[in-house]
Structure formats: structure tokens, C-alpha cells
């Protein structure tokens, strides 16, 4: 590593570590986030010669974090299938329950809806709402053109809203049913 690259790595680490950590923590559980962040910085170190100029640094870091967390999820998905099979035959996987953030019911429900979206829609919503990235920045992270970002974001929001609306209607029906029953009993 040349002195310039070493200095660049130091600045990427010192100035952006919190944001990289936050990106990863928003996508993986607290018990593994340090390992995932380390994988991100390992990849950063390997790609340090590709690092863009100051303006594009954060999307570039998020791009790497996106690839690393995606790899992590593919591995985790395989593990979950195995755990599910083990549990179906009565063998405990011994894996601790992932940490749950204590939030109010409405927020929990909205997050559940978000998690039910497909991975592309979910990621684009998170990049827009949680990382607060602009469309050009999302385009750099996902390596798709800006028009596609706009369309996907539009569609993802529609799906999210539709699901949310359905849940609200179901909740209203549930709360209306006992009231109607009580009325009928009188």
C-alpha cells in the first residue's frame, strides 16, 4: 500500500466509520455487526485504488457495504433453511434469538411490511429513507441508472403503501367485528 493509499484508508476509516457502521447495523443484528463492518473495511482496503473523489466517497462505501451485507444475507438465508430443517425434526439450532428493537406497535408493523418487500424494493426504500440518499447517490450504490432508481422507488413505495393500507383495513375489520357481535347480543 502506497503512503497515499494508507492516508486515504485512514481518512475513510476515521471520517466514515460511523456511517458505515450505521448502514450495516440497519441491515444486520447487533451481535454480528462488528464482523460485517470489518468485512466492509477489508474490501475497502482491497479496493482502495478504486476510491473516488470526495463527492462520491459515501455512496462508494455504501456500495461495498451493500455487497458485503448481501453476501452475508445469502449465507444467513442458507443457515436459516438449515435451522428450519433441524427444528422440523426436533433439533435445536442453538442460535440465539436476534435482538429486537423496542418500538411501538405501529412502527413494528411498518417495519414488518418493509421486511416483506422483495430485497430490491426493501434496499431502495432503506437507502432513501434511512440513509437519506438522493436518486443519483442510490444509482451509484446499486449501479443502476437514475431513471430506473426513480421507477423502482415509485413502485416500492406503492407496494409498501398498498400493504400498509390492507393491514389498516384488516385491523379496522377486527376491531369492528367484536363491536358488531356485542350489538347483536343485545
Amino acid at each position: 500500500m502506497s503512503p497515499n493509499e494508507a492516508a486515504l484508508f485512514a481518512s475513510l476509516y476515521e471520517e466514515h466509520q460511523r456511517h458505515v457502521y450505521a448502514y450495516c447495523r440497519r441491515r444486520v443484528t447487533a451481535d454480528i455487526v462488528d464482523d460485517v463492518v470489518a468485512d466492509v473495511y477489508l474490501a475497502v482496503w482491497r479496493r482502495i485504488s478504486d476510491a473516488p473523489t470526495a463527492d462520491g466517497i459515501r455512496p462508494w462505501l455504501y456500495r461495498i457495504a451493500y455487497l458485503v451485507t448481501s453476501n452475508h444475507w445469502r449465507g444467513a438465508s442458507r443457515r436459516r433453511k438449515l435451522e428450519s430443517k433441524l427444528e422440523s425434526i426436533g433439533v435445536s439450532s442453538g442460535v440465539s434469538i436476534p435482538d429486537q428493537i423496542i418500538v411501538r406497535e405501529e412502527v413494528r408493523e411498518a417495519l414488518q411490511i418493509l421486511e416483506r418487500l422483495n430485497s430490491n424494493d426493501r434496499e431502495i426504500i432503506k437507502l432513501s429513507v434511512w440513509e437519506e440518499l438522493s436518486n443519483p447517490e442510490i444509482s451509484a450504490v446499486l449501479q443502476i441508472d437514475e431513471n430506473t432508481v426513480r421507477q423502482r422507488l415509485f413502485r416500492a413505495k406503492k407496494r409498501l403503501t398498498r400493504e400498509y393500507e390492507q393491514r389498516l383495513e384488516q385491523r379496522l375489520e377486527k376491531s369492528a367485528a367484536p363491536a358488531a357481535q356485542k350489538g347483536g347480543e343485545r
Partner: protein
Amino acid sequence: MNYETQVLALIREGNPIQDPDTLTVDQSDSAVYLATLTTRSSEVTNLDTKQTEPTSTKRSMMPWLIAAGVAAVIGVAIIFAAQNTEEAPVVDQPTPTAGPVTIKTDIDRSVTPLQGTFEVTVGADALGCSSGTLVSMNSETFGKKDNVMTCESGPNTGTFTIIYDPTDTSRWNVLESSDDFAGLQGEGRISFVLPDASTVEETFEGDIEYTS
């Protein structure tokens, strides 16, 4: 407030890290952190090797036994034929055109573009090359690297280019090739270790074949 605004507001509220700037994370010195990462990468690779080797040995046991049996029968047949013929038969050795390979590289990161050497530890006959030099550069595909490999030892001359995504679980494949390597195709998995801050040792494991 419409439903879209409502649900997006709830998701915003559910952001596990509301303000990264208020996070208290371990802010150790970047050089120390890098040193930890390089050690960690070696440990992870060693662990992976220990875990995968027994599995592959078990899996490959049966084909090897069959191959050994077939080879023994052919060997006996050749010896028998040679003993019963005045002139020893001339057997053309077919040029292997496919098989598993393992290519190990040793890259110096202190020069630009990155340069190094490679050694084919498995499948040198199938590839037609046992060692050579390489130049590693940014690919035209975003985030990927191209290793342009020039063979310097072995029956084949020319170059072939391996493209890969330099994360430790990614895959590689042959992007293009020239001269004796024309028609070379291949793919597999890549792992790497960082012995020190200016060196990277990569291992490309997979399968190659020559297509006409």
C-alpha cells in the same frame, strides 16, 4: 396525511440508527484497525480451509477409487500388450482440455498498476501453464478487478484475463484469452490473505476448459 406519507414516517421512526454521528463506536487508530483486519483475514481463510478440506476429500473419494481402478486395469493391459509385441506401441498423449485448477498469486500493492506472480498449484497440465506474471487493474465493470496473466512456464504461451469482484466470498471467471490460451473458459471461487499491508495473496479455485 396520506398512507404513503404515514408508512414512510413510521419506517423513518423505526430506523435503528437515527443519527450515526451520535454513535459511540470503537475509534481505534486506522493503522491498528488495518493490522487487525489483515490478521483476521488470514485466520478466516485458515478456518475456511480447515472446514472445507475434509468434506471435499470425502466427496471425491469414490471417483478417485473408480479412477484408480480403471487406471490399474489400463496399466496392466498396456504392460501385457507391450510384452506381447516386438515394437512398443506409440501412444499419443491427449492434451488435457479441461479440469480443476488452483492458481495462487502473490501481488505487490506498492506499485501501480499492481503487479505480481502466479503459480498453478493444481491443474497446470490442463491449463498448459505452471507459472507466470500478472498485472492487476481496475476492470471496465464497476468494482471488479482484471488480472491479466502472462504464462512464462509451460507448453502454452500468451495471456488470459481473470475478472473478479474483490470481496472474499466472490467468484471469478475467465474474461478473455489470447494465443495458445484462445478458447479458455473457467470459473470458481476466490479467497485471499493479506500477509502484510503491501502484499496480497489470492487463491483462485475452480474449473477450466478449452472450447473450440
